C-alpha cells in the first residue's frame, strides 16, 4: 500500500492490470442483470467479481480518494451489490402465499378494527337513513342533482344502464372506481386514522341517505333489487379496506415497533396484502355489477342467491376456511 502511494508508476501498473478485470466484471454483472436464466457458475463468478471489486475499491479509496476511478469502482460495486441482493422473482408463489396464509392471519389480527369499521359504517348508514326519511329536503347534501331529479320523477338512475353502456365497459368502470374507493379508504388512515373515520362515516351516510330517499319515493325495493347481487361483498370489502386504514392510523398513534416509521411501514406491508385481496373481490363485484345488476331479466331471488352465495365464498376466502391447510402464523 505504501509503495503504491509513493510510486505512481506502480499505481498505474496496478490500474492497468485491474482495468481489464473491472470491465469483465461489469459486463458479467450487466449480463446477469438482464436475463433470468443463469447457471450457478455465472452467479459464483459474479460473487467473486463482487469481492474483487470490494478489494479494489477499498484500495482505490485510500490511494485515489475522490477520483473518477474510485467513483467508477463505487458505482460498479453498488451495481454488483444491488444485483446480488435482488429479491427472487416468484410472483405467483408470493401471490398464493399471501392469499392462502397471510390474508387469513391478517383477518385475525384486524378483527377489532374490522368490527369497529363495520359498526361505524352501519351506524352512519342508519343515521343517514333516519336523517333523510325525517328531512327529505336534505337529500341534496348527499346525492347528486341528476340522481335526485331521476328519483323524484319515479326513475332510478340505474335503469337502462345496459342500453347506454355495454356490460364489459361498465364492469371496467365500476371495478376501477371501487378500487380507487378501497384504496382511499385505506390510505386516508395516514392521517392518524381520522381520514378513514371521516371517509367511512361519509360513505355510510350516503348509502343510508340513498336508500331512505328512494324508499321515500317508492323506489326502495328497486334499488335493493339492483344492489342485491353485488352490494353485500362490495360494502364488506370497503369496510375491510377501512379496517386497513384504521390499522395504519393506529400504527402512527400507538407504534408497536421502535419508531413510528418502522411501525407504519409494517402496517402498510400488512395492509397492502389485504388491499390486494380486496382488489380481487372487487373485480368479481365489478363483473356482477356490470353483467347481473343492471340486467332486468334476473329476478330478485336469483340476485339474492348470487349476492349472498358470493358473500359466503368471499368470507371463507378472507378467513382462510376455503383452504384445506390451516393458515400459517401471522406475517
Amino acid at each position, binding site marked *: 500500500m505504501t509503495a503504491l502511494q509513493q510510486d*505512481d508508476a506502480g*499505481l*498505474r501498473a496496478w*490500474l*492497468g492490470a485491474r*482495468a481489464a478485470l*473491472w*470491465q469483465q466484471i*461489469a459486463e458479467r454483472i450487466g449480463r446477469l*442483470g438482464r436475463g433470468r436464466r443463469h447457471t450457478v457458475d455465472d452467479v459464483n463468478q459474479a460473487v467473486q467479481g*463482487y*469481492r474483487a471489486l*470490494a478489494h479494489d*475499491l*477499498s484500495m482505490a479509496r485510500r490511494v*485515489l480518494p475522490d*477520483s*473518477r*476511478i474510485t*467513483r*467508477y469502482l*463505487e*458505482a*460498479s*460495486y*453498488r*451495481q454488483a*451489490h*444491488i444485483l*446480488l*441482493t*435482488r*429479491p427472487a422473482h416468484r*410472483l405467483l408463489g*408470493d401471490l398464493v402465499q399471501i392469499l392462502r396464509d397471510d390474508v387469513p392471519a391478517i383477518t385475525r389480527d384486524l378483527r377489532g378494527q374490522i368490527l369497529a369499521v363495520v359498526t361505524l359504517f352501519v351506524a352512519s348508514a342508519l343515521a343517514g337513513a333516519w336523517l333523510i326519511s325525517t328531512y327529505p329536503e336534505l337529500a341534496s347534501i348527499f346525492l347528486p342533482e341528476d340522481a335526485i331529479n331521476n328519483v323524484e320523477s319515479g326513475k332510478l338512475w340505474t335503469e337502462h344502464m345496459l342500453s347506454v*353502456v*355495454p356490460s*364489459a*365497459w361498465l364492469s*371496467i368502470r365500476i371495478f376501477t372506481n371501487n378500487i*380507487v374507493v378501497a*384504496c*382511499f379508504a385505506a*390510505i*386516508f388512515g*395516514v392521517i392518524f386514522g381520522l381520514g378513514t373515520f371521516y371517509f367511512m362515516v361519509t360513505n355510510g351516510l350516503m348509502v343510508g341517505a340513498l336508500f331512505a330517499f328512494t324508499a321515500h319515493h317508492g323506489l326502495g325495493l328497486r334499488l335493493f333489487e339492483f344492489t342485491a347481487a353485488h352490494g353485500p361483498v362490495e360494502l364488506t370489502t370497503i369496510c375491510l379496506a377501512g379496517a386497513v386504514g384504521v390499522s395504519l392510523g393506529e400504527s402512527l398513534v400507538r407504534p408497536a415497533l421502535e419508531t413510528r*416509521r418502522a411501525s*407504519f*411501514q409494517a402496517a*402498510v*406491508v400488512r395492509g*397492502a396484502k389485504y*388491499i390486494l385481496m380486496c382488489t380481487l373481490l372487487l373485480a368479481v363485484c365489478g363483473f356482477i355489477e356490470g353483467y347481473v345488476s343492471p340486467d332486468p331479466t334476473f329476478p330478485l331471488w336469483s340476485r339474492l342467491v348470487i349476492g349472498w352465495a358470493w358473500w359466503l365464498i368471499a368470507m371463507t376466502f378472507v378467513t382462510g376456511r376455503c383452504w384445506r391447510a390451516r393458515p400459517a402464523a401471522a406475517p
Partner: protein
Amino acid sequence: MSSDPIEAPDPDLRIESVTGVDVTLPIAGLGGRSYAFIIDWHIRLIGGLAWFFVAQWIAKRSFNVRTQDTAFDLWVVLPAFVIYFLYHPVLEIVMGGRTPGKRMAGVRIVMRDGSPPGVGPLLIRNVFRLLDSLPFVYVVGLISCFATRQQVRVGDLAAGTLLVYDETPARESVTRLVTQGTAAGLTAAQTEFIDDLVARWPALDPVVRMNLARQALLQFESAAPPVSIATLSEAQTLERLKALLRPAPASAQ
C-alpha cells in the same frame, strides 16, 4: 446479504456489506426527484395523447368507429388512460426501480437497506401516489419532501423506499485514465484533472478555463518558461493540455 443501514448525518444512505466495504448512496433531493418526474410526466402525457390521436384516426378511418361507440372507449380512450396512469408502476417494476425519466436524471428507487425494491414496495409506492398528488400538483408529496430529512414523499415512507443518485462514470473514461498522461509523467490524479478540464473546456467561462489551464501548464510542463505560457492563445493552450494527456509510446511502456 446486507444488514440494517447506518444513517449518516448527511442525507446519504450507507449500507454495510458482508465484504466489509460500505456502499454509500447519495439521496436524491427535491431537484433530482422533480426533474425525473417532469421528464416522466411528459413522456406519459405524450404517449397517452399519441395513442389517443393515432388510434382515433385509425378507428375512424379503417373501422368507421364513432366517438359515441363503446369500441371507441375500449380501443381509444381506455389504452390512453392505461398508458398515462400505469406508466410509473409498470415501468418501475420492469426496469427495477427506474423509469426513463429517472434514468435521465440519474436516480433510482432502492429500499432503505439499499437493496432493489420488489413488486410489492413499488406497487405500494404507486398506490400512495393517490395521496401524494392531493389536492393538486403533488402538494402533499412536496410538503412531505420538505418535511422529511431524506426528502421522501408519503409513498416512499409507506413502502420503505428512497430515491438515490446512481450514476456511473463512463467506463471508457476510466480506461483512458490508466494510460493517459504517462508520456508527460503525470500522476493519475493530475491526469484526471487535465482530462476533466479538457472535457469541460467548451462549458467553462473563458477567463476561468484559461486561468486553470495556465496554472496546470506551469505546474506540469516544468520545461516551459512562464512567459511563453502567458502569451498562448486559447486554441494553443488547449492543444498543449491535450499534448500532456498523450500516452507514452509503446516502446517506453
